[in-house]
């Protein structure tokens, strides 16, 4: 929905480029675009302002004015600065001074605490630990049942006392329980609360003072707006947060809230929640989040999705076929289905950095229905036709069109496109043999 920063900066500088030299005012215009990109990513207003000031200072120092690619230079600086603010990568969880390790999850309603308590348990068990989950949310209807159900699903015990007891006592009793049974770590799921709810905030303080958690993890929704700063600041001041878990990052939120929280509270980002499955918890990577906040696309996630959809052997096999010119419609169909598994085409296109104007064009032209049409056409061919499309004459074309519910023209078009693709591949194959393989193909399709 939002234009990317790369796009806007290119536009800004292109407009300026025509009149010759860039002036300081031009740099100001570029800074305005950086600020806008941050605000559209929900970075806090004040944080964005300070951040832009830092970028401006460096931009002036690096002489953006004389750069041949000013847009790239500005983005490069912004990206580096972002990574700096976002902080160190993959900080693990703190080790306790003396076991057990106690993790307490806090946050607003609906941020994903219960789900992430379970995800953390799965994550820690993978490291050979023996976690226990503690149901300390006695307010939300069925919150205890939810944690129990999750515990059952992942085979991790849940300590609960129903909803009749006070969460402070529950947490303390859970400690004793864990001690007796040798569970470590202890993961406490607390009720969601508004940061302005004094009574409930005090409850967190009481739990903290009773069980002395190793980590107090603030769970925040990646979609949070400007409010993120107030929420994080209040939780941090009253209860003290030691780490942040940013949830729902599998959507398309830019996640600027994380930058605000980090900048204002200094609390390190520890994990990123990337899906509804209980193993969808990833360590935090500053460079990825930076790219996303700036709207630069997310090539790494794209590659990851591609890897999920295929194996290395398949990829090598395919490459071989492509280069030898043996790539047929059957392979094409298979590739199409793999791409489909990766998600809607528009979303995939958005992950590719720097597509800009072409992207909008492509988005207007390609829809997921196109997949279906192409699939239908290929499905209406005989196996022999798929392997040797050259046998398809006029009568076969008519039959295929009828069978797939498309027009003769559409079938012809597909065959023509495929032929061109094949020609291109053989050319590439020849070049590869001579050692002239063009570098910089964005990623291995499939």
């Amino acid at each position: 929905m939002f234009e990317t920063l790369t796009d806007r900066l290119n536009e800004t500088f292109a407009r300026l480029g025509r009149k010759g030299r860039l002036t300081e005012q031009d740099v100001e215009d570029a800074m305005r675009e950086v600020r806008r990109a941050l605000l559209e990513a929900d970075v806090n207003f004040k944080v964005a302002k300070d951040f832009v000031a830092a970028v401006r200072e460096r931009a002036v120092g690096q002489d953006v004015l004389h750069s041949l690619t000013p847009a790239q230079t500005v983005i490069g600086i912004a990206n580096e600065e972002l990574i700096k603010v976002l902080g160190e990568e993959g900080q693990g969880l703190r080790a306790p001074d003396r076991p057990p390790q106690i993790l307490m999850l806090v946050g607003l309603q609906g941020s994903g605490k219960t789900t992430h308590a379970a995800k953390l348990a799965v994550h820690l068990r993978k490291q050979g630990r023996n976690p226990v989950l503690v149901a300390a949310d006695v307010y939300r209807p069925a919150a205890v049942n939810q944690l129990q159900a999750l515990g059952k699903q992942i085979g991790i015990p849940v300590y609960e006392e129903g909803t009749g007891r006070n969460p402070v006592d529950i947490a303390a009793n859970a400690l004793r329980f864990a001690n007796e049974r040798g569970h470590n770590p202890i993961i406490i799921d607390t009720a969601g609360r508004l940061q302005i709810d004094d009574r409930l905030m005090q409850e967190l303080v009481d739990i903290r003072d009773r069980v002395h958690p190793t980590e107090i993890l603030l769970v925040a929704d990646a979609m949070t707006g400007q409010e993120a700063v107030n929420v994080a600041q209040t939780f941090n001041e009253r209860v003290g947060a030691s780490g942040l878990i940013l949830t729902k990052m599998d959507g398309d939120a830019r996640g600027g809230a994380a930058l605000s929280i980090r900048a204002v509270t200094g609390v390190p980002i520890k994990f990123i929640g990337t899906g509804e499955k209980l193993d969808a918890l990833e360590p935090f990577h500053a460079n990825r989040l930076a790219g996303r906040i700036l709207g630069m696309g997310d090539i790494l996630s794209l590659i990851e999705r591609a890897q999920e959809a295929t194996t290395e052997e398949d990829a090598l096999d395919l490459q071989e076929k492509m280069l030898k010119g043996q790539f047929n419609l059957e392979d094409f169909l298979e590739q199409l289905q793999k791409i489909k598994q990766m998600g809607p085409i528009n979303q995939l296109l958005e992950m590719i950095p720097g597509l800009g104007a072409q992207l909008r064009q492509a988005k207007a032209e390609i829809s997921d229905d196109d997949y279906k049409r192409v699939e239908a056409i290929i499905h209406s061919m005989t196996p022999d036709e798929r392997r040797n499309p050259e046998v398809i004459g006029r009568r076969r074309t008519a039959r295929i069109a009828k069978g797939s519910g498309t027009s003769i023209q559409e079938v012809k078009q597909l065959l023509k496109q495929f032929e061109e693709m094949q020609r291109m591949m053989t050319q590439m194959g020849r070049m590869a043999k001579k050692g002239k393989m063009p570098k910089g193909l964005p990623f291995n399709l499939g």
Partner: protein
Amino acid sequence: MILKFFRRKTQPDVQMEQGLEKTRRGVFLEITRLFERGALDDDLYEELEMLLIQADVGWDVSQKLVKDLQRRVREERIEDSLLARDILREEMIALLETASRNRTVKILQRGVPFVIMVVGVNGVGKTTSIAKLAAYHQGFGRNVLIAAGDTFRAAAIDQLKVWGERVGAPVIAHEQGSDPGAIVFDAMQAAHARGVDVLIVDTAGRLHTKHNLMAELTKLRRIMQKTVPEAPQETILVIDATTGQNGLVQAKEFADAVAISDILIAKLDGTAKGGIAFSVAKELGIPISYVGTGEKATDLAEFRPDTYVDSLFFGEGEGF
């Protein structure tokens, strides 16, 4: 018997006013102070833009509001800053009202269940909002049935059942992991058989980027339409008031998938301003119809642009 919906005005307004009280104490009160300070200079406009953005109104809409104000101040030669404030207020209300006009008058017909489908991303407060909607309709003497269509999230069904008991509305549910389509089908049958006035269908939270889950919503609609061709008569998207600019993308994607008729802004009892309402109204023209303001089943109010904007502007609500 035909009942017109949304006629009752007084009580929901009082509630909206109360719910917004905390919100009002924040940013928007500062807007009033800003104008009371006097001079209509660049500083004022810059600060105004900042305050709007802090309320999640978003870059585009903030720019528009500030520029429109500047233009009118210039063209109408306004020097009184309080007059300028009133113009801003007008513009803000007008922006929301444009969308509100798209709100259709919904008619409740005897013998035909009025079906409400509630959708949204994870954690926005769908289930709680459903309980509130149930209580709201019961307040008009309507017979309400709830369908537990969230079969994905652990214990979502239990949560809904607890709410159902609290508000005294029966809940049609299968077990977790079952097909939501089957529940919707059963609920539609039950609504008919029991002569239910209003059927509220819960759905699992889903990110708008998960295309297969979005397609599932379309399927649920088709199942409803087999029994009642015009169902769902209301499709409500719940948006969390703390949501930032992604709220607009959410609204667009959900609207593309299932034709959202109304938006409910939940959790407006915190300090979040729900400013994304302006972007949604401006860009998509979908009416904001309800606001959720607390944790009780009665904490639901009809959204009214003037109440919303006024509550945020003035210490005392006007027109109540």
